[in-house]
């Protein structure tokens, strides 16, 4: 029995400012997603079906950040209609790549990009969902890992704690037997300050971690940057590394600003 009195719990998937990649991760679950749809009613999921059932919903998955006055209002309605609200992806949990504008003059940028900027009605900033409404769980990643997404849905379904680690990527990197690219190849890697979840893909392919899952539980970015500098990375490149998909997440933002002012 669902909380809303229906036989199956109702799931809604909402999109705000985003690229749709995280919703695609859900569709990418294919067989598992079909199985999920047998026990959960997909009540609203525009990317998958035109059919939309009115709320309230037992579980809302929210993708994207808040960038317009209209969305700032819409998220309030989504929250009011949802028993549990889970944000998915870097946009929803940290403001996303579009939060790069947060330290710029939006009006000026709009006038350069758009022929008729007067038709735009946007906020000065791109902010995570949790800056607007209370959020029950944040699932990180750019995009989210489909196994983790499924795990969160299953945990919700069976009323248990989701197994989503908040420690560094390094534990996953070591568990999969990869050789550390920082120490053995001199490649700067954000893994030590980034939350696990991707399975440490990049170091396994000779690249440093890009920080897709945002800051880990106790990030020491200053110490990592000091090591990067000793390896010859410039302040400009340190700013760039922290200022990507999760650039507006507190720990990464502070660290990029620190190097900008040097």
């Amino acid at each position, binding site marked *: 029995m669902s909380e809303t009195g229906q036989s199956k719990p109702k799931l809604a998937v909402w999109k705000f400012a985003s690229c749709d990649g995280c919703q695609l991760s859900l569709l990418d679950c294919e067989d598992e997603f079909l199985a999920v749809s047998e026990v959960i009613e997909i009540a609203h999921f525009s990317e998958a079906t035109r059919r939309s059932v009115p709320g309230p919903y037992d579980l809302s998955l929210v993708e994207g950040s808040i960038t317009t006055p209209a969305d700032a209002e819409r998220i309030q309605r989504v929250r009011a209609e949802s028993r549990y609200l889970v944000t998915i992806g870097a946009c929803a949990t940290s403001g996303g790549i579009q939060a790069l504008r947060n330290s710029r003059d939006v009006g000026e940028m709009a006038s350069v990009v758009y022929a008729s900027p007067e038709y735009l009605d946007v906020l000065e900033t791109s902010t995570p969902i949790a800056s607007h409404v209370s959020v029950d769980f944040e699932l990180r990643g750019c995009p989210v890992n489909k196994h983790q997404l499924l795990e969160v849905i299953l945990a919700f379904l069976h009323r248990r704690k989701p197994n989503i680690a908040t420690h560094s990527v390094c534990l996953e990197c*070591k568990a999969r037997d990869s050789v550390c690219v920082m120490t*053995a*190849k001199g490649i700067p890697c954000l893994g*030590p*300050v980034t939350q696990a979840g991707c399975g440490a893909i990049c170091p396994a392919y000779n690249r440093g971690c890009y920080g897709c899952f945002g800051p880990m539980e106790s990030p*020491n970015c200053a*110490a990592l940057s000091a090591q990067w500098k000793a390896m010859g990375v410039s302040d400009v490149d340190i700013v760039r590394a922290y200022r990507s998909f999760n650039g507006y997440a507190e720990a990464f933002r502070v660290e990029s600003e620190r190097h900008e002012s040097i």
Partner: protein
Amino acid sequence: MHDADSIVVERQDFAGLFEILRSLGYAVVGPTVKDQAIVYDQLSQVDDLPIGWTDEQEAGHYRLRRRNDAALFGYAVGPHSWKKFLHPPRLRLFQAERSEDGAMVFKQEPVEAPKYAFLGVRSCEAHAIAIQDRVFLEGAVADPTYRERRIGALLIAVNCGFPSSTCFCHSMKTGPGISQNTKVDIELTELLDDEGHRFVFQARSQKGQTIVDRLPARRTTRGDLDAAEALVAEATETMTRELNAEGVRDLLYANLEHPRWDEVADRCLTCANCTMVCPTCFCTTVEDVTDITGDHAERWRRWDSCFTLDFSHMPGGSSRQTSKSRYRQWLTHKLATWHDQFGTSGCVGCGRCISWCPVGIDLTEEIQVMGQSTQGVPSS
């Protein structure tokens, strides 16, 4: 070290060892070059060994380097240790099903225990295995996976000739030579000099004897034994790092509030790499997973570390919120509380945590600084 019972196998006959091990049903694992490091993996032939390779290690630094000879074992330890075979990073512990009448039925997990031959175990590593034996086998309950894998494993140990700059086994009394009371099955020393490229082999257990007996070999000469001894003596000489193992336990207990902990916490990333690469660290966490129907559940175990917040999570949150408290837990466990818990040191001086720490934190340096500015009188 070797005695007069030892034998000499020429380089061209070394492949015979692989044949014998295979005929006895062993899966041979050992050092090989992969991803620009010397790692431990499956070996099928002599050529899989890091022939002519060595390593250059410093705090937070590891690089492969070419040797100017074709030695098979001319390097120190790399990022992997044998623990990944004996104590796998991920393991399913059991499965549970909901039966028709709603009861929970547990399905025990069969213990998977490949019969491993570990080729190229270093002295510090043999000590690390002995330490994990205590942890996993000599407590109230033995770990079944570790037990089965450990019983089947054959340890072919190599005397170290080329320690890296991060090694400090000599001061921990765990190397670089293999001592008489270190538990291994075969001890070998690689010699490469004017007398040729050859290996001194010595059986150190019954299991080892049956293998050594089958190798094409000649008797050792005084010259072979002297050369083997000189190699280890020279390795000892070249070791620059040290840790004052005597009294380190008391030193740490007397300095639990030393300001140095704050300094190291400023640098520590709490990334957990040190605990992952350490051959004696054994900590795990468990995760329960369910399928969509909820009728099937599994419990998985995976490596964890005292550097994660979840590790010390109790009602009310993690009891080690600060990185200072987490680094202090790691170091005091390795060098102090381990003595109280298991009657040995938790560190064998392999240097992995130094080389593979992304920011190059060096426990020998931390201990040295604390020793020089001790805050309390170490009680004994």
